[in-house]
């Protein structure tokens, strides 16, 4: 499966920039939607719920964010239509290496993998291939 549309959710714009750069460099994804707030991201997803061609193939989600953190986003995300969720893989992308965060992320079935910043594209590739 070809990863075309990617949604990046991170309050740190530098990190989003770096991630986008690393993905582009490795030819992963074509369209990048960058949201600096989890709430905004949810709103965006809700706005495109009837527009399958804009559904993201992949979401990179930071954990520690103001207002709504990554896990809170996931709790809201499950309420979205299956049509969106079934098409989309979520990768947690965080600077945290705390085992509790890792374990917690594993409880969400939509989360494909917990990745540590900076993004190690080799590891990512392995998982995208798996998913494909």
């Amino acid at each position: 499966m070809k990863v075309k549309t990617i949604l990046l959710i991170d309050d740190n714009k530098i990190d989003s920039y770096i991630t986008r750069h690393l993905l582009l460099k490795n030819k992963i994804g074509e369209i990048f939607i960058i949201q600096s707030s989890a709430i905004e991201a949810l709103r965006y997803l809700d706005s495109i719920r009837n527009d399958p061609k804009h559904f993201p193939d992949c979401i990179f989600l930071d954990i520690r964010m103001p207002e709504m953190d990554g896990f809170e986003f996931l709790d809201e995300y499950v309420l979205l239509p299956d049509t969106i969720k079934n098409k989309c893989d979520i990768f947690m992308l965080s600077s945290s290496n705390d085992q509790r965060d890792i374990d917690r992320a594993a409880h969400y079935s939509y989360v494909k993998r917990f990745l540590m910043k900076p993004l190690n594209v080799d590891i990512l590739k392995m998982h995208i291939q798996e998913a494909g």
Partner: protein
Amino acid sequence: MINTPTLEKLIISNQELVLQSKEKEKQMAKLVIANNGLALQHKNMEELLVNNEKRFRALIENSIEMKILSDEDGVILYGSPSIIKILGYSDKEFLSMPEQTFMHPDDIAGYINTRNKVLRIKNNSGYFQIRLLHKNGYMVWCEGTVTNLLDEPGVHAIVSNFRDISDKKKTEQQKEFDSNNLYALINNTKDLLWSVDKDFNLITSNERFDEVMKLRSGNTITKGINVLNVTLNPQQRKRYKKRYERAFTGEIFTDVEYTNATIEIWSETSFYPILKGEEVIGTACHSRDITDRKRAERLLRKSEAFNLGVLNSLTAHIAVIDKYGNIVAINEAWELFAKENGETDMQHTGVGSNYFKVCKKSADDGNEVASDVLKGIMDVQQGKQNDFYVEYPCHSPNEQRWFGMSAKKFEGDEGMVVVAHISITERILAKNKLIVTSNELQVALSDITKIMDSSLDVICAVDAKGNFLKVSAASEAVWGYKPEELIGKPFINFVYHEDSEKTQLTAAKVMTGNNLNHFENRYIRKDGSLVPIEWTARWDKKGQVRYGIARDVTEKKRLEKAFEIERQQFFDLFSEAPSSMGVLSGSGHRFEMANPPYLKLIGKKDIIGKFVKDVLPEVEEQGFIEMLDKVYQTGKPFSANEMLVKLDIDNNEKPVDRYLNFLFRPHKASDGKTDGILFFAVDVSEQVLSRKKIERSESRLKEAHKIAQIGDWQIDLTTNKHSWSDEFYRIFGTTRDEIEPSEDAFFSFIPSDEMAYVHSKVAKAFVDLEPSFLEFIFIRGDGVERNAYSEWKFEFDENNKPILLSGILQDITERKKVKKDMELTQFVFDHASDAIFWMSSDAQIVKVNEAACHSLGYSHQELLSLSVPDIDPDFNMYVWSVFFPELREKHSISIETTQQKKDGSLLPVEIRANYIKFGDKEFSCAFVRDITERKIVEQNLEQQYKELQKTNTELDRFVYSTSHDLRAPLASLLGLIEMTTDGIDPENELQIEYLEMMKQSVLKLDNFIEDILNYSRNARTELEKDDIVFEDMVQEAFVKHEFMEEIDGFKLKANIKQTAEFSSDKRRINVIINNLISNAIKYKDVAKEKPFVDISILSDKKSATIIIEDNGIGIAEKDKTRIFDMFYRASVQSTGSGLGLYIVKETINKLDATIIVESEISVGSKFTVTITNLHNYES
């Protein structure tokens, strides 16, 4: 119940109350006036005045007391606001109206009266009670005062203060109603009620009293008159004065008085002092006519006297004797007879003397009758025969006398016998005379020629007209007439006129040819006396002559009369006898006679003439008809004692069990054949049932003694017969066959050195005759020395003579031994520092030591009266009921609980309860230790632990934030360095090198942070338990290291064998594995062609062994002990923080795991970690 004095008091106190309240009103009015005056005096103090004004207005307006100001004519000028509340009128409706408008018509006059009085004098006030009209139409009872303040400057009005007293009125009315009722009661009673003061003046009296007094004195009684002056004669006056004065002392008493002025009157008068406080102010009196009662009492006494008279008028000499022969009662005839015979002082035959002794003395003097009598009475007493009767001669020097003596058991009173002597002299004399007479007759008859003349009977011939033709010489003896005086005269002239009619009728009958036998009539003797004659007559048809033989039957008559009396006496005895008796006749057993007790026994009436089987169908199947048949056929009596008979007494076909002593005695006709059966029965059900009860309880006692291994012994002191129970023999280790019970036999078991002691004790027992006990040593049958305990008591007869000694015997050897053993234990127990409690199975505290008392602050005695819940409220009976069976099972239980001391304070304790069984008794023996100190330490510890936990949580949160916040910028930086490197010209090597250096620096910092965080996490966080799959864990570790800088050409190898589920702290094991792998990569030996790290894990149910082996640079021997130190870096090749292995070691410690290092420089290193499997296989 309210008695008069109380009522008086009530009335008095109520009046006082009213007076008091009036007084208060007055005082209040005065106060108001005074206050008003005061205010006016200080006119210049305007401020004060205004304030006062306000205060008063507030007072008035908020008071529930109503206030009306009116002018001289009664027109209302002002009404306080409370009027709206209570009477419902607004100012508008109220003001300018005359006061009367609002009053009950009946009350207006009274109010005006009071008001007018008040009007006359200024500042005067008056009290009134009045009904006021409520706006809604009903009346409100009010009381108040009206005050004339017309001249008061600033007031100029009549002021009425009043308040609603409806409730009070209601109560008063109720009280009035109650007292009306009470007065009605008092006045309607037939008893006299009155009260007098200390001057004997009448205070109150009821109508009856007035009525009676009026009757006596003719004057109307008025209150206040001196009661002593009413109708009393000087004597009565004196008496009454005394009584009143007695009552004035405060005494309550009752006197009975008898007067017999015109008619007999008994009266009973009670006096009650009337108290005012402590002082007696008068007396209340209550008098009742008890004449009827007294008359009834007198009648009763008369009837008692009558009964005694009847007994005394009996000619039979009667005495009642008890089972020892003591005479307990005699009648007059007995006493008279004794006195006539020289027993003037009644020493031998009066009440209290012993009849047996008299008989015995007489018997010893050779009087056979006396010994028969003695035996007979005893037989009756012992129930060997129902009664005893003997006739005996008892001649005095002056006359010949015969007596019939009977002894009969007194039913219902054990051993009591009624002895009766009846004079039968006349009967005996008559009998004897009869014998003589008939003998004489026989002689006379032998001479045929002298038949007629010598005949004692008159032989005569009478012609058809009834004139004597011939009369034998006996006529003189019989009638007093010589034959010649009779011949030719009509016989009827000599017949007693009452008998003439039947005589003529009979004579006519004879003349029709009917022979006459045994006809009786009375003739008038010459001397005028009557003589009963028995006739035998025959009519000689041929000669037209009646022959007759006339016999003087005076003697016979007398005998008959005696017989009749006797029969009557028997019949009386028969009907009055306490035992049942009767007569059956014929083979079908028809009731001829039955006395009332018998009818009562069988619960039937009208049985005479009926057959037994019809009257008592229920006895047929019980075999009684058969018994009767047998008695009837064989002529042999049948008797049975305490035979169970089921009788349908209630006639409801539900037979009742009766135990009877009975006797069937055949009645023989003159021909010797049985023609009937006499029956006697005594209902002994009560005795039998109560005896059975006793027997049952005795057998229970016996059983109980057997179970308790208590032997019984008895000495019959009258016969000196000893008896020992089976258990007694068992205790002495002998048998009935071996030894006979006796005093000597008993002493044969006592060892010689104990003998004197036991002898003295036994001797003392017989002197004291008191219940007592003895502990002694004896040698058992098998020669073993044992200890015994015996206690006993004496039983006495009526004369306080000991007749029976009975006691118990117990072998107490074991008990003694235990006691001895216990003494040592006791010492330990008493002086133990731990509190010791013994509890019985029902949680009762039965034994405690000093420490126990001390610890709870109770005394020894107090503790022994408590149970577990009293000293440990948490340990209620329910908890105990669960606890004790558990203790019985486990034998020892330790618990921590709180005991409550006597002062209520709580004491934390540790209890070790032990189960102990003594015989059939179960105990909990608890050792209790005060753990207050420990508890304090524990609490402190817990507190510290909580604080520590809090600190830990806070630190943990800090660590978590740090891990993110410190690492985030580093991650960004690494990403940026990477980007920059990507975008740079590959030719610009210097820049690439700088960037690489930047990257290494950042990585180093990142690692350091990671290490610090790992260390912190390990130190702070508790051990967690996760399921571990080593395969996955190693794969993850490999992935993590695959992208390391130094990984090029490095080989990661794994060999994992996990045979069972494994649990441990996943994060910590990860730290260990990751650190060791990362070390292996970091310190690879660049000289080696194929650097590698080999991980092998072997895990089973018990543990996991992780071996991480590399072919790196190895560790120098000197460093081996230091590599685990903090910040120690052995190699220059190291890029690390020097924390890695320190963290590994700390983690190993936390996991309670082990790590072994084997290494050789340039060869490689091998770390062997062993971790315990925490998986719980049991569940």
